[in-house]
């Protein structure tokens, strides 16, 4: 069961990070390609606080979240003011620079990284693999609840409006910068949470764990599952996490299969598996109709021209 727990824990941690990215990209429509940087900042903050400052996981967690969100705020503010194409590029830049800072600063362990990160202790007992998985699941449920609440909150509605049309949103009394920043800070906070869990899962971290390819992989999860949907990032994380286990015999072609899959997905189903115009959702809906053939006539279809 240890193998299962190891794979599952990583999937759950990545799902939390993907949920965070979904808030930024799916809810607020801002392309961030540097999500792994914030994942890494959370991990490094927690690793430093537990190994060097001697804090426990539970003391380090809120501090790591605060640090990540603060950096998210500081790095997001200038990036979100520039044109939207620039944001993709500046976030790539942030990822490369953050990775370089981790490698080139002896304070952060340099190229060797940080080892000896303690296990999580709950009520005097160290958590085993399965228990840590359960803890991560609890955090995943909390993250999903937070996303759901955000989508129902006025702050979330402001993000949807900005995503759909920034100019129109601002003429409705919404400050676009504030809306984007709220999504960015919430999203980076969730990346920080995922990073903290990752540090205590891997117990040894180095800069390479948070490089640009990791950002791409998190983005793939969100795209695959369906941007802006609640459960899409979770589904995407499961698919991307389980695929390598299935394709183990094809390990040499793994990256190729991934990238082609991602390409086909975004080319033919940009809404993702759980998105609006998805084949999967369409199939499920028509299945549902077959099972329950009531309510076929939709009164809204009649006045199709909208002439009232």
């Amino acid at each position, binding site marked *: 069961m240890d193998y299962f727990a190891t794979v599952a824990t990583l999937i759950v941690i990545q799902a939390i990070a993907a949920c965070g990215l979904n808030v930024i990209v799916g809810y607020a429509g801002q392309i961030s390609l540097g999500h792994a940087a914030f994942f890494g900042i959370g991990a490094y903050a927690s690793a430093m606080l537990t190994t060097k400052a001697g804090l426990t996981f539970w003391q380090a967690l809120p501090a790591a979240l605060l640090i990540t969100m603060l950096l998210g705020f500081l790095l997001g503010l200038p990036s979100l003011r520039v044109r939207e194409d620039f944001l993709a590029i500046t976030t790539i830049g942030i990822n490369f620079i953050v990775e370089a800072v981790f490698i080139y600063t002896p304070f952060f362990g340099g190229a060797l990284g940080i080892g000896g990160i303690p296990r999580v202790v709950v009520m005097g007992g160290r958590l085993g693999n399965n228990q840590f998985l359960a803890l991560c699941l609890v955090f995943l449920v909390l993250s999903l609840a937070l996303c759901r609440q955000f989508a*129902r909150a*006025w702050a979330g509605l402001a993000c949807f*409006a900005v995503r759909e049309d920034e*100019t*129109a*949103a601002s003429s409705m009394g919404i400050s676009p910068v504030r809306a984007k920043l709220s999504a960015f800070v919430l999203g980076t906070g969730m990346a920080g949470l995922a990073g903290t869990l990752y540090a205590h899962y891997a117990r040894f971290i180095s800069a390479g764990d948070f490089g640009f390819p990791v950002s791409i992989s998190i983005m793939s999860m969100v795209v695959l599952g369906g941007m802006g949907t609640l459960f899409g990032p979770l589904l995407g994380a499961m698919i991307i996490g389980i695929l390598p286990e299935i394709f183990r015999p094809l390990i040499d072609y793994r990256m190729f299969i991934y990238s082609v899959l991602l390409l086909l997905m975004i080319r033919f189903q940009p809404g993702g598996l759980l998105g609006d115009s998805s084949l999967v959702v369409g199939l499920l809906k028509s299945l549902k109709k077959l099972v329950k053939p009531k309510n076929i006539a939709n009164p809204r279809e009649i006045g199709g021209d909208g002439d009232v």
Partner: protein
Amino acid sequence: MSRALLEVHGISVVFGGLRAVDDVSFEIHDREILGLLGPNGAGKTTCFNAISGVYPPTLGDILLDGARTNGAPPHGMARLGVGRTFQIVRPFSGLSVRENVIVALGGPRYRGNLLRSLTSWRKKGIADEAGAILDRVGLLDVADRTSGQLPIGSLRRVEIARALALSPRLLLLDESFSGLRSTEIAQIEELIRSIREDGVSVLLIEHNMKVAMGLSDRVVVLDHGRKLAEGKPSEVASNQAVIEAYLGRGERGNVA
């Protein structure tokens, strides 16, 4: 005539060397419908954008209720009670018609207190409030359709409904009649009159001369960024300079 709600004092808007609006002044009074007319490229939309805060005027002042507002961003103007529509409609396409209106109902919940902005908008009271506004513009039966699928006539109403949801004191309508059929035009004309009855002032840009002259209490005519004429529709329609500005350039506008 009552006091001025909006005063535009000698504003100019300059883009790179080009004076899009040149020293234009006018006032809008309480419960007044003012038409802003002029041929294509006369600077009407630029004037609108300056008033609604899209860009500040290069020179001159804009006063709302006596207070200077130039430099306030668009969301600041919306909070001050200035609602607007767009010439090229800008619906929140992925949201339903009702959600489009709810966005504009957020008001103070988008600013200040963070906890307040985290309260839910999915409440019956709010949905009903949006429903009432949609009923008024005649869109209640499509309230739960995705707005991106609607025809242009309905989208123009969505824009008006959103602006109304701001409870504005001043409504800026940018060509709200273009692309509409004559039955729809009559309905929107009626709607604008009823909005005015509620105490809202309206500034409208309109290409269709017949509609603009019929609806406006007063009109201001712009040409090449400058104010050409101002007055009651009947006076302006017989103004020689105005007739030349339109007919001289072969515009199809029918000066009634």
